[in-house]
């Protein structure tokens, strides 16, 4: 009982630390790819301290509550994800619950941003929702293929089976699904070439244009959680989880650095190009994987 409570408290903290570390690492690696020296690894932490000490402007109660809703949604998803042997809420729900609660974070942010009444926010949110329409289709097909192949909806079971029979990304029918998930990973993370919704130069960083001070710090924390969740889901479903949290985080790191290399060299898609891409190759691969799994 005590161990469970400890895990419930510890795992979001761990996820936050890893997510913020990833944010710092992203800036450093991007700088190195650009042949720059880059900021120190702790730069996101410095930024957050600065933001927490700054004055902040609220745009109404929905502005605050939407942000809290999206943070809460992210923290709850983290509780459902096993990393290493740690999984606080292992016996309740599974992939289906994760799928449902994963929607809370972007919806909360959309709700909160809508209160800001800035045209850039509405453009950003509509782009974000269109983009999620693009990647939800292959994502659902991928998850369906995984659930059908292992004949379970529990993510713990999926990890356990993989640890005895090998990673699913190198097993035959799921190889296609894994590739498809990796292809849509930049869209889920919102990094280039899919940073359409947070485009700095086009729509002044989109949904977060009105956030400053503490609100921006909370948005950064939410971003760190989102980063953690989508990569952890990939590692759990296709790279066999981890025997302990350390191995798990090492696998996450590899996936994240691969994603960053894509981020560093590709220009941004337009929204219709992104949809065309997302509904062509990843969906095709995911659909093929599902068909072969069903046969």
């Amino acid at each position, binding site marked *: 009982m005590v161990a469970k409570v400890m895990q419930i408290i510890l795992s979001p903290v761990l996820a936050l630390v890893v997510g913020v570390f990833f944010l710092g690492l992203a800036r450093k690696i991007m700088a190195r790819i*650009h042949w720059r020296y880059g*900021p120190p690894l702790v730069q996101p932490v410095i930024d957050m301290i600065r933001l927490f*000490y700054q004055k902040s402007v609220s745009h109404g109660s929905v502005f605050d509550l939407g942000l809290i809703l999206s943070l809460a949604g992210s923290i709850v998803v983290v509780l459902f994800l096993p990393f290493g042997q740690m999984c606080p809420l292992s016996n309740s729900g599974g992939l289906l619950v994760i799928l449902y609660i994963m929607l809370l974070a972007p919806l909360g942010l959309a709700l909160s941003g809508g209160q800001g009444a800035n045209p850039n926010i509405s453009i950003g949110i509509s782009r974000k929702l269109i983009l999620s329409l693009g990647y939800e289709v292959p994502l659902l097909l991928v998850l369906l293929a995984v659930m059908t192949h292992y004949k379970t909806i529990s993510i713990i079971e999926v990890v356990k089976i993989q640890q005895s029979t090998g990673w699913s990304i190198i097993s035959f029918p799921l190889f296609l699904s894994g590739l498809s998930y990796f292809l849509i990973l930049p869209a889920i993370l919102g990094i280039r070439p899919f940073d359409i919704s947070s485009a700095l130069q086009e729509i002044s960083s989109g949904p977060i244009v009105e956030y400053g001070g503490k609100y921006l710090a909370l948005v950064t924390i939410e971003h760190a959680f989102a980063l953690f969740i989508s990569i952890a889901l990939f590692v759990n479903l296709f790279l066999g989880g981890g025997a302990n949290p350390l191995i798990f985080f090492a696998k996450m790191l590899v996936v994240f650095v691969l994603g960053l290399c894509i981020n560093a060299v590709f220009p941004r898609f337009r929204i219709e190009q992104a949809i065309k891409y997302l509904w062509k190759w990843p969906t095709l691969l995911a659909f093929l994987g599902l068909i072969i799994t069903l046969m």
Partner: protein
Amino acid sequence: MDRNQIRKWLRAPAKMANKYSLHAIYFCTGCGIIEVPPVITARWDAERFGVIPVATPRQANLFLITGYVSVKTLRAIIRTYEQMLEPKYTVGFGSCPINGGMYWDSYNTIKHLDKYIPIDGWIAGCMPRPEAIFIAVTHLWTLIDKGMANGYIRYRENYEFYRRNQEMVLGKLDWPPLYSTE
């Protein structure tokens, strides 16, 4: 980060965080903005000092006024400055915001920017080299350390003066005063 700095971080985290996380609002007022892209990209890499450009005034705390300020731009500058969140720092870049520079007898530019918004530091020159921005940033660190980068406090205290000067150039302002002027 040496041991000396850790003690400083513990003593005044807000001050240190303000120093090392200067987010500059990317707002092109004049010709000086041409010096900023080399500063933020691979050649001079301002990000190693924590200086990055952001797109909106809400997220920024450093305002670089680059080059001459026409009357039309002044309106946008004031609105942007008032939207930034405290503590905020302004740096005038180039000789035009200081005293008009080569536009000193122009009918359409303002001569002394610090009559309209408070300025924490100047970079003289026409154009200053990109390195000058780093010198300004290090000077700004010293000013923040000593508590002398207090432009936003001066703005609050002397708001009547600044508002009167703004109205003298722009006529009736179509936004309410930021602070009460009684």
